[in-house]
């Protein structure tokens, strides 16, 4: 750490309002040279908003910003870049069909003869910076062909190419394996040793305590406290983040798995590009248990779920639901065989937002009695069922004929749950069921899933949040590169799971 007392960035009394919400409420934040300063908070606490203001994507309603002592107006990303601010976004701002070098030099392209693109020069410059900061990448590779960890390095290089001294990393480990995250922390150390200052946005307590020098906690748009990382514990930070005692695990009784409800045998599935994503995968789910499927995004979960629910063709292998072979059945056939599916993206895949709640609930069954007969629809029956389920699942925000789009995220997810569960499926597949929901809604979903397990259904929980998997599952399967590489009990540690998720320790059955 170089000159620890020099302040390179000061954001004072920043306030930013959006319609209906104050995203940042009088937040003050400073950054010292060579430090790693973590910005901690729940979803919606205002971390990303604050950083977007720093990067010129938003304009604050009140407050000033000073960089190295000089007041600055950051009206556009260009202004921020000129002031030495670089941002590595959570969802990468990279163009898949272009090469690493093209992405890095975009906007400040080297030219020869003043008019023509000099890609040779670009490749050289990229190679030079990547060596200087030990961020190995191939300048000529296309983004869509490299790994997520490498893509993140390209994002960092983009900022370094533009001489950023202040680097903002927005939830950088969200898409990384535990190993890649460790590499990232090493990279961060290397960068600070060279004088760069880093703002690290996260909601993961363990990372923040490991990598940061100081931690600023935001809650509901306000700054709660800035404290040194030494001496901060996960519990104390959690309390600051949420404002109350947080139950990190959900309460549930033991499982009693009985009949085999879902059997997947030696499944082979290809994705749209013809790449085999599921390679001889087998799993089974019994009545009365929750099976968690852990894995890094992109290891075949999506294709597996698509194949299991009839949305994608199966190249080889079988899928059996309660004794019926549904391998070649349509999605509709799967639903009729007793499968329930809570899809990953409730707004894009789970609901037709312009339909009413009642119409959404009828999405699978509208072609059957009592909703319709011989093609003739009976809207009143849809409305009746909708009203009943709204009451049963305590859906707030409207009646059976209200547009689903007018509900909050949590209530929308309740509608999806209601629809799937009311049909009495034998097996329920829940993909990222609590993504983007607030704490109260998450609690509801978790409780409901456990209730369904206790009623004798089989639940497959596919999630990218290890915490959720660990707290809900009776059995944990790890998927890596299209195969099940390990089965664990819920007592397993995150490290064990992490190792399996990256393909290490294969063949070891780490049972209880």
């Amino acid at each position: 750490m170089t000159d620890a007392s020099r302040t390179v960035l000061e954001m004072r009394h920043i306030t930013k309002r959006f319609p209906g919400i104050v995203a940042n409420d009088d937040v003050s934040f400073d950054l010292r040279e060579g430090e790693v300063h973590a910005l901690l908070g729940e979803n919606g606490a205002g971390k990303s908003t604050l950083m977007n203001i720093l990067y010129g994507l938003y304009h604050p309603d009140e407050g000033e910003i000073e960089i190295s002592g000089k007041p600055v107006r950051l009206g556009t990303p260009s202004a921020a870049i000129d002031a030495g601010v670089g941002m590595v976004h959570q969802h990468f701002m990279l163009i898949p069909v272009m090469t690493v070098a093209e992405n890095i030099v975009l906007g400040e392209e080297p030219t020869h003869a003043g008019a023509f693109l000099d890609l040779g020069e670009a490749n050289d410059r990229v190679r030079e910076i990547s060596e200087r900061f030990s961020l190995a990448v191939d300048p000529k590779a296309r983004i869509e062909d490299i790994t997520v960890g490498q893509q993140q390095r390209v994002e960092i290089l983009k900022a370094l190419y533009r001489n950023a001294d202040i680097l903002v990393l927005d939830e950088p480990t969200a898409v990384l394996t535990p190993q890649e995250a460790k590499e990232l922390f090493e990279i961060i150390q290397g960068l600070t040793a060279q004088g760069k200052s880093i703002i690290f946005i996260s909601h993961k307590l363990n990372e923040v305590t490991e990598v940061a020098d100081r931690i600023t906690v935001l809650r509901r748009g306000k700054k709660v406290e800035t404290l040194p990382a030494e001496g901060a514990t996960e519990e104390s930070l959690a309390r600051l983040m949420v404002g109350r005692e947080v139950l990190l695990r959900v309460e549930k009784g033991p499982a009693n798995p009985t009949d085999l409800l879902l059997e997947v045998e030696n499944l082979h599935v290809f994705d749209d590009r013809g790449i085999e994503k599921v390679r001889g995968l087998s799993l089974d789910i019994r009545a009365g248990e929750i099976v968690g499927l852990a894995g890094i995004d992109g290891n075949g979960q999506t294709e597996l779920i698509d194949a299991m629910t009839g949305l994608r063709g199966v190249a080889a292998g079988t899928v059996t639901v309660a004794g019926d072979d549904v391998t070649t059945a349509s999605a509709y056939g799967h639903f009729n065989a007793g499968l329930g599916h809570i899809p990953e993206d409730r707004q894009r895949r789970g609901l037709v937002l312009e339909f009413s709640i009642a119409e959404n609930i009828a999405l699978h069954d509208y072609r059957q009695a009592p909703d319709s007969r011989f093609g003739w629809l009976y809207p009143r029956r849809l409305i009746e069922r909708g009203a009943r389920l709204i009451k049963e699942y305590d859906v707030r925000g409207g009646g059976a004929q209200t547009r689903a789009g007018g509900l909050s995220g949590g209530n929308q997810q309740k509608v999806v749950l209601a629809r799937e569960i009311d049909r009495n499926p034998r097996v329920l597949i829940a993909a990222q069921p609590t993504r983007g929901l607030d704490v109260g809604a998450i609690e509801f979903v978790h409780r409901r899933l456990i209730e369904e397990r206790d009623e004798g259904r089989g639940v497959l929980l596919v999630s990218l949040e290890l915490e959720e998997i660990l707290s809900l599952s009776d059995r944990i399967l790890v998927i890596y590169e299209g195969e099940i590489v390990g089965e664990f009990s819920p007592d397993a540690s995150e490290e064990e799971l992490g190792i399996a998720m990256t393909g290490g320790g294969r063949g070891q059955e780490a049972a209880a």
Partner: protein
Amino acid sequence: MSDLETPPPADPSGLGPEVKQSLLGRYDVAQKAGGLLAPVLTAVLAFAVGGLVVLVTTGKNPLTTYRAIFDGAGFNWFFPWVTGDERSIAALNMQQTLILTTTLILTGLAVAFAFRCGLFNIGGTGQYIVGAVLAVWIGSSFQNTNSLLHIFLAAIAGAMCGALWAGIAGFLKATVGAHEVISTIMLNWIAVFVGVFLFGLGGPLQNDTQEFIPISNDVVEGAKLPVFWGDPLLQGLHVGFFVAIGALVVYWLILNRTTLGYGVKAVGFNPEAARYGGISVSTNYFLAMAISGAFAGLAGAIDILGWQFRLSTNDVSGLGGGGVAFVGIAVALLGRNTAVGVALAALLFGGLLTGTSTRNLDPEIFKPELASNLTLLIQGLVVMFVGADLIVLWLMARMRRRKPA
């Protein structure tokens, strides 16, 4: 933060459906929000701009021009103070307007139905032509058949052929994802050329008795639709009008009371969710286009059986430049793809087209050829305003200001 996501892959032609979904979604909100207000305002705005064009280019008072068009359309027939000769002229005009309205209702429904499924059917012209061709062929063959049966056959054949023609585009969309805008436009032109071929000199369906005129045979008396208002010899209003009204009812019923309509709407609003729900997106694309084409084909058939009675190559090639089927697009958009909306918009445009025709517009007030291009301009303005949602956005902003956030 959802707006930082990378976009999902689009269909092979790059003319993606995602944007149209939001358009349907915006309509939907507008329906509940503005109701009748938005379409009325859109129409008023379009006419206002049209009037401006009139003023600027010809120096004539747009209000007198519009008044002349109004009378020429026969709308003054509704005024009880109009009597005598003026009244009978108005009646005649109103019959003409309603004849056109019949066609526009059907072509408007065609476009509207496809829109409900998220598809843009610009192929009304081609579907209309094939419907007309079938109707004129069947209508001019089979002498001495039961009138009702004959008419029924011809109309159904026309509708089926229209469904088939649109079905080609629907099939391509459903199987390889070919964008329906380009495929239907190509099918339009192909239909035009096929029609010109069929009725051209030496063509297979050319008139049996007049070998130097490129025209079809006439529809036989028994297959002509009876006229119920006005004089058959002066092109009175025929019962096809009721077919159009019936079509409106059928449209509403399909969309709101059948499982087919549910599927079509679901796919139109959110094809992803529909797929995940177990609904076949490609089947619905095909069916929506086919039903859409059926409406347009029926329009062609009704026109032939109702007042045209024959097709010449000029008729066919004239349609290529944008005839009644083309206006259907503006009708559907202005009518916000609803049955009531389409009916009213069809009446408006029917009146506009009649009022600006050579027969009904006094050249002293405004040149009719200019006027027909004026109607094209107004259609374009309507489409533009609807597409840009200007009115809707303004209305929504006003509504938000009234309600607390």
